[in-house]
């Protein structure tokens, strides 16, 4: 087994990119949430592997946070939200899945080209983690752009944050304070977005973002 450390890190980070694509592919909200939980689980595994490699015990805390908050609490909470809103069957995308996938591939290619050029001095594991992390961030942004349903936009935002986490752990040394504060700010953002979801729903009887444009008097 040549270089098991690198290969495992590569496998986990590559798996994260792949699950980002699976998020883009889903067209049901419940399966979207399941895949998001998987995304967070793989992130937790990846962070734990980095902790093992770098001999950094505080990264285990990060992994635990990722596992507890993102893989369990947030998906369960989101599921309860969509059940209360009664929208667990619908999703509509702005463009079809095919063009979205192609755009995603282009973004992945872009992030590889950029990151591998820029980080020539870093260690191999950090380099590939950064490249994959940028890909995950861009795919999260793409997901927020291509979905009109507010809940799936939230999921896109959360997966983007997972990408940031991957970059931070790969780059050897995000202090634990920063990590915890980032996790909590994400949680607060999640709560705020959740409240907004209910407000939007009360106001317009739908969580389709298109309704907001109509309310502002814009025309598509």
């Amino acid at each position: 087994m040549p270089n098991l450390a690198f290969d495992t890190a590569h496998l986990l980070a590559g798996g994260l990119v792949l699950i980002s694509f699976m998020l883009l592919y889903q067209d049901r909200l419940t399966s979207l949430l399941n895949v998001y939980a998987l995304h967070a689980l793989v992130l937790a595994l990846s962070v734990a592997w980095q902790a093992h490699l770098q001999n950094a015990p505080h990264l285990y805390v990060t992994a635990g946070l990722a596992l507890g908050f993102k893989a369990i609490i947030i998906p369960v909470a989101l599921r309860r939200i969509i059940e209360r809103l009664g929208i667990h069957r619908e999703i509509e995308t702005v463009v079809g899945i095919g063009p979205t996938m192609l755009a995603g591939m282009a973004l992945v290619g872009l992030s590889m080209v950029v990151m591998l050029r820029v980080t020539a001095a870093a260690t191999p594991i950090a380099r590939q983690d950064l490249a994959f992390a940028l890909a995950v961030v861009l795919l999260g942004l793409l997901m927020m752009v291509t979905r009109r349903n507010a809940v799936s936009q939230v999921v896109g935002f959360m997966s983007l944050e997972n990408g940031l986490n991957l970059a931070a752990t790969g780059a050897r040394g995000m202090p634990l304070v920063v990590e915890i504060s980032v996790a909590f700010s994400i949680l607060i953002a999640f709560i705020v977005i959740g409240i907004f979801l209910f407000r939007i729903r009360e106001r317009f009887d739908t969580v389709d973002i298109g309704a907001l444009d109509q309310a502002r008097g814009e025309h598509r």
Partner: protein
Amino acid sequence: MALIRDLIVQFFEMSLVLVLAPGLVGLVRKAKARLTRRRGASLLQPYRDLLRLLRKEVVLAENASWLFRVAPYLIFATTWVAAALVPTFATGLLFSWSADLIAVIALLASARFFLALAGMDVGTSFGGIGSSREVMIASLAEPAMLTTVFTLALVAGSTQLSTIVAFMNSPAVGLSVSLGLALFALIIVAIAENARIPVDNPATHLELTMVHEAMVLEYSGRHLALIELASALKLLLYVSLIACIFAPWGLAGAQADAIALLIGAGAYVGKLAVGGVLLAVFETAIAKMRVFRVPQFIGVALMLGLLGTLLRFVSRSF
């Protein structure tokens, strides 16, 4: 002397795939029947069907051209040659110098080309629908297959099957996410190409869902027997391709003796049985999808192949 030995081994391989192909189809049918709590026909039923078809006379449509009569032989021949190129139980076969993955894809593609032509030859609207759908599926599945091959070639350093298999058997493989993606892409392509359940239903003659059966509807007698045998061979080819690339254990080496060859053949039959049962479980667990969903399904394979290539570039650049 060595040449004669190689010839014998290669001939044994070619006859082995021919003999095993209907058995694999029978096994998949039997397993599917058992999974739905039916008894199912015996494993030998496909052989009996083929023998019966061979004995029956050929009924030709009045306006069938020479192409219609030639096509079954061409389809069968190209598929058989493609199956002979795959290292099923030994890597050092006589044909292995030409056993390039791209050559295998090209052989299968030419078989499909003749099948689509034959479907349109008689001029029934049914055959036309079948041909157009087959070509639509193929136009998506072939790029996916090629990108998968590129991934494999990047990992193993060659598109030649025996080199890839030797590389996969060595400890240099390591743990690679690209190979996992390639495996899934290859499975999706295999399902689509063999007209298995989420894409096409091989057990039905229902018009709305027919792809493969619609094209061969006009065939009878020995022509139909050859086409059925060719499609069984194609299924066997894909299963043994996946088995030899991703589970190359027990394969005999280049200059193996008779015992190693026998072990290889036994392992090969075992792998085929496992593959057939897995296919049956998958087909039972999933529902047939609409024709217009098929491009998305195969698009996943294309995406996986591309992603595998991209990820490979990252780990290669160190």
